[in-house]
């Protein structure tokens, strides 16, 4: 059986909005990344991270119950080398800074610009 070459890498999407999950998934899959999992909240995000160990995780900053920062910290605890990109809307300046200081590799802002999202992801994954 021929192994399929995956140019991009594996991605886990942690995001409570279906709409945003689909948008991200579309962007990634269109560009050769493999979305290996989706989680709809932080708790599930941590579980899936542990289970799937993706190359990169996108993490929504604002989610019910366990928010993005808490989730990020939990993931970084499991895997200090985790490559996590925060996903946020406008108006979360402080939280983004918190996230970045807590180990997030970068952040992307809704509404997504495909090019920007890809630059961020490529940049992180090539390292």
């Amino acid at each position, binding site marked *: 059986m021929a192994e399929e070459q995956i140019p991009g890498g594996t991605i886990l999407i942690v995001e409570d909005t279906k*709409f*945003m999950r689909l948008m991200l998934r579309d962007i990634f899959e269109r560009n050769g990344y493999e979305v290996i999992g989706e989680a709809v909240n932080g708790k599930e995000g941590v579980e899936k991270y542990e289970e799937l160990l993706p190359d990169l995780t996108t993490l929504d900053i*604002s989610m019910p119950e366990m928010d993005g920062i808490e989730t990020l910290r939990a993931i970084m605890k499991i895997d200090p080398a985790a490559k996590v990109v925060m996903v946020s809307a*406008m108006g979360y300046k402080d939280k983004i800074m918190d996230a970045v200081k807590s180990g997030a590799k970068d952040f992307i802002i809704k*509404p*997504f610009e495909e090019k920007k999202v890809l630059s961020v992801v490529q*940049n992180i994954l090539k390292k």
Partner: protein
Amino acid sequence: MIDPSKYKKMFIDETMEHISLVNDTVPGFEKDVHNIEAINVLFRSFHSIKGMAASMSYSHIQELSHKLEDLLDSLRQGTAYDSEDVINILYDGTELIEKMVRLIEEDSEEIPDSAALLKSISNLMAQNSGETGTDDQGMSRDNTDLSGPLSEAPENNNVVISGEGDISEEEKSFRNHYKIEVTISEECVSAAARAYILTGMLVESGTIIESVPPMSDIEEGRVERELKIDFGTDLSTDDMDTLIGSVVEIEKYVITEIEPKEGRRTEDVRTPCLVAREKVPDEKILRYRKPGAVKVDTPVLDNLINIVGEMFIQENRLIEITRNNRMPETLETVNLIQKLIKRLYKEVMTLRLVPISLLTDMAPRIKREVLQGSEKKVNIEITGKEIKLDRSIVEKLGDPFMHLLRNSIDHGVESPEERIKAGKSEEGSIIIKTTREKDMISIDFTDDGKGLDRDIIKNKAVSCGLISAEEAELLEDDEIHSFIWHPGFSTAGEVTSLSGRGVGMDVVKNVVEELGGKIWVDSTKGQGCSFHMEIPMTIAIIRTFRIKLNDDIFAFPLNKIVRTIEIKDDELIKNEDGMHFFYRDEKINVYDLKDILQYSSNGVKSKESVAILIVESGRESLGVIVDSFIAGYETVVKPLGKPLERLEILSGTTVSEKGELILILDVDKIIARALASSNQFLGKTGFISLSSKE
């Protein structure tokens, strides 16, 4: 590029989900406007709506949801507001967003005016606090999409070579030394985080010798948009260019090499080099947008259904012809066509489906309206609101729905004192549950209020002359309750527990029955009341089952048939009470369809077995004897012509494959007649619930 049209449906669906969630949450929030959990739920919903709207470039929705988000945020920060103001704004805002979404769904260009509401939110916030919780500028920045100049290429590589540079003394361990000047884009939400990421990246491949602002400030987030960094590294100029060029949200950067170190080959960099990049923000690139959904008017959908219906009829005929002429090859194609028509039918029907949430989402507002100025407390729980049914059915159900709900709130649920006296919790509960079984949708309204009062209804029925006092004593509770469906019965104000808002219960019943549905009530005095409604999910085409009486063919709606059974003559037990047989130990009363239809028999008794159709309606089920079964068919129901309309035992007509008219029987009416014939002593009033037409 992201193509927004693809996401439109999802945007609509998910935004509506959030609107539902908001509608569900506001009532709880009403009790306590500082309930942090409710605030968070509401905040997140508006936040999500905002994010999606921004992605779709629906700036009006974005703006409004952003404003509502701001209000909730300031509430979250502990700002004290007049709770009624906040609630009203939330309701109005949600309603307006819903309207905006509906217009988008209809592909309308219309944008409802939200200026007044935005202003009242601003005013409210200004009155109560000096500042708003979130970053308001984010909004204006958001809207730059497409407004900028066109650019021929996303990147504009102006490489300028110049001879500027200083020598630093701290370049010992690195081959190269650069001065980097970076301007972070204005659009970057967090320049601080961007600076932090950039410097973090640099540190991985070199040393930051010095920076402005200093690293300690960068780490603390004290950064404007400009950064100057002295950087020692082994990377070449090209590598540096690639590295910094890969960082997003950088408007401009200049990399200056400060004198190459000794021993380094310099043929490619003859002079200190300056790389400068002006990045063009992506939004400035004009995008072609594909048109989104196609708008289809409802009449077109109706035509489509008619056409598909005709196709069903012709298909049935085609199959028969093919079989009769033994054309196996043709039959194969015909079967394929049959499958395609079925698919087409499904698609057409799907186009017409809308969620019941269009109705249930009104519940919080109806509650608010009914309870205005009342001390009553009511919790409404809604389940199954995602279940879909035909648009026209939902439209017609609007009035009955509102009426039933108003009734439950207004007259079902008692005041807090009464409830406590009755040993119930202070807050009344109303559950609206929608479920689907095959092609039928059930909607149940259940309240835990005072329930229907047998005596009041009975007295009213007697005083209206519907029944004599003696007869009334013989009736079961259910039968007494069924008087509420009688026209004109619901006007007696408080005593009947029925709200007189122009729509009576008889109208509710009529609408439901016109839709081919059924409604009945279950109530226990003091414990509450349940209205059960069963309606078909779709209109126009139903599956029917055909039977024969003498040489005539009749059809029954398949969804009313429990099963068909043929029993031996001697299994049918006849006595003075009528006929019955036992099916799996259950006694089933049986009636002859010919008697019910007053249809004369041709006297032919061909078989030793009896063909029985077990039909049901609401909670009643019974068997009807027919001459023989034919088969199930897809059928387009045509409205009855004028003379036939008077025959209440028919619900419609259809056309056979051979072009003959087939009458479709109304199972509810059949059951009503059957029961009435065997319960003569109850007279005409006993089954008002099954035959409302006078």
